[in-house]
């Protein structure tokens, strides 16, 4: 075999990129979650004997590979909000974009920057109903807030406020859960009113909202 041929074969075996190793791994799923695969677990037949329903069970663990977005989610574990910025037009985002949205920037790769833990409410709502996992925490104030310097708004919860006191444009701070409770997801942080902010006096609309969500408080109390 000539030397040239050997080189060709070596190059073929070379990987496009070295794969990452994962030594630090944390699992916190409930003990009763089992991946059983696809399984028929029951059936029912209507009283008139005409129609049959069958029950299929499926439970599957998914891996969300954050890839190039990883720094944002890893930053949450460290109590930091990372954003990205286009080196050409300067637009900055949280949620992050790894390539610029401006067509004239031709998908320029963006730079990572640490964002201030300050924001402003863009719009808000008071959830009186939600997905199963959130029901006990109702009512939840869900807001879209613009983190200082960002061009876009990000959704998250607003805590430490009576729901009827929320205002458009109010200043906020970003607060993280204690370090040992963080999981690297957006639920690691929430918004709170800025220290200098205080609610405006009560009014008719606030009283109306208060009445609207009263049943939600009552309903949550009855939950086990």
């Amino acid at each position: 075999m000539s030397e040239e041929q050997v080189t060709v074969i070596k190059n073929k075996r070379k990987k496009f990129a070295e794969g990452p190793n994962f030594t630090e791994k944390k699992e916190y799923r409930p003990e009763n979650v089992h991946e059983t695969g696809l399984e028929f677990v029951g059936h029912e037949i209507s009283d008139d004997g005409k129609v049959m329903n069958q029950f299929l069970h499926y439970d599957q663990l998914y891996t969300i590979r954050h890839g190039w977005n990883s720094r944002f989610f890893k930053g949450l574990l460290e109590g930091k909000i990372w954003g990205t910025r286009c080196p050409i037009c300067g637009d900055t985002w949280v949620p992050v974009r790894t390539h610029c949205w401006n067509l004239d920037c031709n998908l320029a790769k963006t730079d990572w920057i640490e964002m201030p833990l300050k924001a402003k409410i863009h719009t808000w709502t008071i959830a009186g109903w939600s997905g199963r996992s959130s029901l006990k925490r109702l009512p939840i104030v869900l807001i879209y807030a613009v983190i200082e310097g960002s061009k876009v708004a990000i959704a998250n919860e607003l805590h430490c406020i009576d729901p009827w006191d929320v205002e458009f444009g109010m200043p906020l701070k970003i607060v993280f859960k204690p370090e040992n409770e963080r999981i690297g997801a957006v639920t690691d942080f929430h918004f709170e009113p800025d220290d200098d902010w205080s609610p405006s006096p009560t009014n008719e609309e606030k009283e109306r909202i208060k009445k609207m969500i009263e049943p939600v408080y009552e309903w949550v109390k009855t939950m086990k």
Partner: protein
Amino acid sequence: MGFNMSRKICFVGGATTPFDYGPTGFESIEGGAAECIRETREDIPDFSLRDIDLMIYSHFSVHFGHQLCSEWIIHDHLGLVGVPQYRVENGGNTGGSALYAAVLAVMSGHHDVVGIVGWETMDSVTQSQGSEFIALASDIRYELMVGGIYPIYYAAMANKWMKDNNVTEEDVATIGAKNRNNAMDNPKAQWYRNEHKYITVDDVMNSRLISYPIKKYDCCLMSRGVAFALVCSEDYAKKVNPDGYVTIDGIGLSSCTIRAGDRLNFPGWTNRYGSNYPEMTEFGACRNSAEQAYKMAGINDPLKDIDFGEIHDAFSTSEAQIYKALGLADENNISQFLHDESTHMHGEIPMNPGGGLMGYGHPVGATGIMSAIECYYQLSGLIPKKHNSKKSEVPDVKCGIVNSHAGTGTSISNFIFRRH
């Protein structure tokens, strides 16, 4: 755009199964598709399955049936082996996008007779699990665990929109009542088949809070259902339905961000419409796709030129937002437009006489097809035959709009239908 304007695109027939939720003992999905085609053949007996040269399948989520490629089950059940087929998926705008694909297929001249079958089987999981499945169409990395369900995203958008446009909760509640009451004349509608009662604005206002300012009766229904529609060339339309065919004179499809918060300052919108649009409150993709459809159909004043519509009322608030995006009202008069009940059966431009998503139901892949079918029924004079009476018939209609809508306004299509 290089449309082949010489070729007219026609809508000649279609039908849905009843829409419903729960163990109702409905047919299988393939059986439902077959029944929709059988009903279509009762209206246009000269249409034969042998004439179909393309099938487009409209289905949103495999999560609901846990069957990949369920269109393959339907397709061969219909006896159509050998006929080309593919599936279109585009969230809540799946039906509209399938219709768009069918129109393009005929417009290209490559196909003449295109069938569309749309379906969803959302009652295969619980309502709360269903809501979570739908929320998988949000950006799960950023939004699934905060808020987590679509009504909450829509409520946040609507809250600011209503303040900015001086629209009250009572104003939008009229829409929640209107569409359910319209469905009281439509035996296939989910509201007709279940709750079956006329409701008032007070009933909407007093229904439970979902997410301020949206209440239960401001929200659409989760459904099981199948729909079939037939799109074709004018030559074929003249052959099978010479008196009743409808022409599709304008089509538009547009897009917006998946996360509603990302549409602030988006260059794609700033370039088109200037700064501060669509904000987080307007449906830019609706305005943009309507503009495309209007231009193609020669609509200059939509309020005057369009007689009625079947539009995507996932929430009563979003139906109101859609009125504005369609150019029926602006920030100065949208409040008055709602006060005047302009879109009720007695109004200037009735919207969702068939019941819409809140009254008829929302089996996602079938929904946009259902809207198109109801629009066609109005234009071809079939309402007295398909509904229980003439109460939900818009008199003397010549032109209707069909609207299909996805995500938080992430993909939206509009179609102009005209009586030929």
